[in-house]
């Protein structure tokens, strides 16, 4: 948008001065309001930005152990915050393995036995498809406020990568640092420290702690892309600090939001299809 500047007469200058005052006051109150945001409000805004009616992702997961790489590809569909379906398409060994998540339930389909297996209890803590992500990490992407109380700890500037139409660009971004502390006992991570980009309202980093205070995992997010008025990180890196020299990267290569997805996709019968 091109802005035109004009030389103004004194009357106009008074109007401009008043306008500036009003604008400055507005910005001040906005800033005050922003500063007064609670941890819970920030998390709700993030949730509103990150939750879509439906979505479809094509992702590439790269597991890195001491420089040895294993790649897995998958296609995922989701609806709202609690329903998702994923199918592994590569490598051949994992092709056809599918996952269905509906609210607090998760099922896995193994094509070699043509059987749907319920993943429950502490099995959710186990590694998902040999990666640094656990089943629980995949399930706990939302509804964190049901299990955690949120507190704004501080603001901090951290590097975040962005990807438009080319190579990723790293920029320093102002972030809220929100501490999430468990309200219930049945959680793997007793405390989570989350960095939220103030402007884009996306998480860019998360440290996950055990009850003892030990740092278990660190997740870094980046390659933030804009979709309409909203923003979404298309890169995730999970480092499991309990394992040496290992991390898993997730690259979302194709993404579509608010598309038509038949109800039948989110059903157990779709797993055997």
């Amino acid at each position, binding site marked *: 948008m091109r802005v035109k500047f004009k030389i103004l007469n004194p009357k106009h200058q008074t109007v401009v001065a008043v306008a500036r005052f009003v604008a400055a006051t507005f910005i001040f109150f906005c800033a005050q309001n922003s500063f007064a945001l609670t941890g819970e409000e920030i998390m709700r805004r993030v949730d509103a930005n990150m939750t879509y009616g439906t979505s479809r992702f094509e992702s590439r997961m790269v597991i890195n152990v001491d420089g040895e790489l294993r790649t897995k590809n998958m296609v995922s569909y989701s609806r709202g915050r609690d329903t998702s379906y994923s199918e592994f398409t590569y490598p051949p060994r994992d092709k056809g393995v599918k996952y269905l998540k509906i609210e*607090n339930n998760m099922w896995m389909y193994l094509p070699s036995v043509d*059987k749907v297996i319920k993943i*429950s209890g502490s*099995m959710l803590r*186990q590694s998902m498809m040999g990666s640094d992500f656990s089943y629980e990490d995949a399930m706990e992407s939302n509804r964190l406020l049901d299990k955690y109380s949120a507190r704004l700890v501080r603001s901090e500037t951290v590097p975040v990568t962005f990807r438009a139409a080319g190579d990723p660009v790293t920029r320093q971004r102002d972030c809220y640092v929100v501490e999430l502390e468990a309200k219930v006992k049945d959680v793997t991570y007793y405390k989570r420290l989350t960095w939220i980009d103030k402007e884009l309202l996306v998480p860019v980093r998360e440290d996950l702690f055990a009850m003892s205070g030990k740092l278990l995992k660190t997740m870094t997010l980046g390659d933030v892309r804009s979709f309409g008025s909203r923003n979404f990180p298309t890169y995730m890196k999970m480092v499991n600090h309990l394992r040496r020299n290992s991390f898993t990267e997730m690259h979302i290569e194709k993404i579509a939001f608010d598309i038509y997805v038949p109800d039948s996709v989110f059903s157990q019968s779709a797993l055997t299809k």
Partner: protein
Amino acid sequence: MSSGAFALSVNGYYENDLVIINKPSGGANPGDLNKLRLKLDLNISESLAAHIEPRYYFFIRDDNLPVAGATGLDELALDSAYIKYYGAANVTLGKQRIAWGTGYIWNPTDIFNPFVLSFAVNNDEEVNVKAARIEVPLGMTGILDGYVVPEEDRGFSRKGIRAKTNIGLFDVSASIAAPEPDRTLYGVDFAGDVLGFGVIGEAALNTRTSSSGYVQAVIGGDYTLDNGINIQAQYYYNEPGKTSKADYDWAALYAGNISQLAKSYIFVGFSKIIDELAAVKLSTIINLDDQSFMLYPAYTRSIAQYVDLSLEAMITGGTEGSEFKPGTIDPTGFGGSNMLLCRVIYNF
């Protein structure tokens, strides 16, 4: 989810199993089993697909070495071949896998694979059957599943129907099957979550017109410790089994009419993912009536994007004449053997 477009995909694997069996009578018998399995999937349309799975086994062996899934020295077989229609109900016709139940080792409601050493046997070695099957979705988490395995003599056709749904954190199912002309099997099973423990249960009441009925049931749970070690335990109750090894029906076992000799068994498994590429597992089955056991340690590692290696061992123990140490009762002489296995699989 089927893509809908006409497409053929060819996958499969080549597997080499180098096995050494140590017989109770002494000595080591080596064998080398080569397996080539193709998995051909043909998407004919949005609602029609076909799957064909031929396998070729080439076995270089010493003596009559018994290895699961290998029945001949040079064998080509069609493990599964079916067409599947997807619609308001899914219909599958042909040789296929029908796997019911929630147990890991014992599945009393599954008439085709009621007992599988799942920690030792490749899933592809399980029994497939020529059947007509229909699966009707009942909402998002429910399904009505029925099959018929036809026989020339219609009276010997096997059939079953099962209804499955989800209640809270539990999947629950009820089933009825007719595995034999005079036997009816009433089954229930569940899988869910109690206080962070994964729990499963499966029970079958078998009734016969000619004799009294009996119950087979399995119950178990699993838990993953903070250090990542997963512990899984399942108890199996087999009412027709015997509590004394002197009463065991060995003839029925070797004829394949029964899967277990005793009344009570327990399975305990420990597994730990070392890193994203390697894992260790220790599994054991104990016959609680004669205290014989099978111990199965295994180490698996992904050695390349398409190649997996596993080193496994089977160690048996017990007194002479017990289930896992049958001694001279076993006509093959291999019962109660110990085994070492090195398995390399190339997936494509």
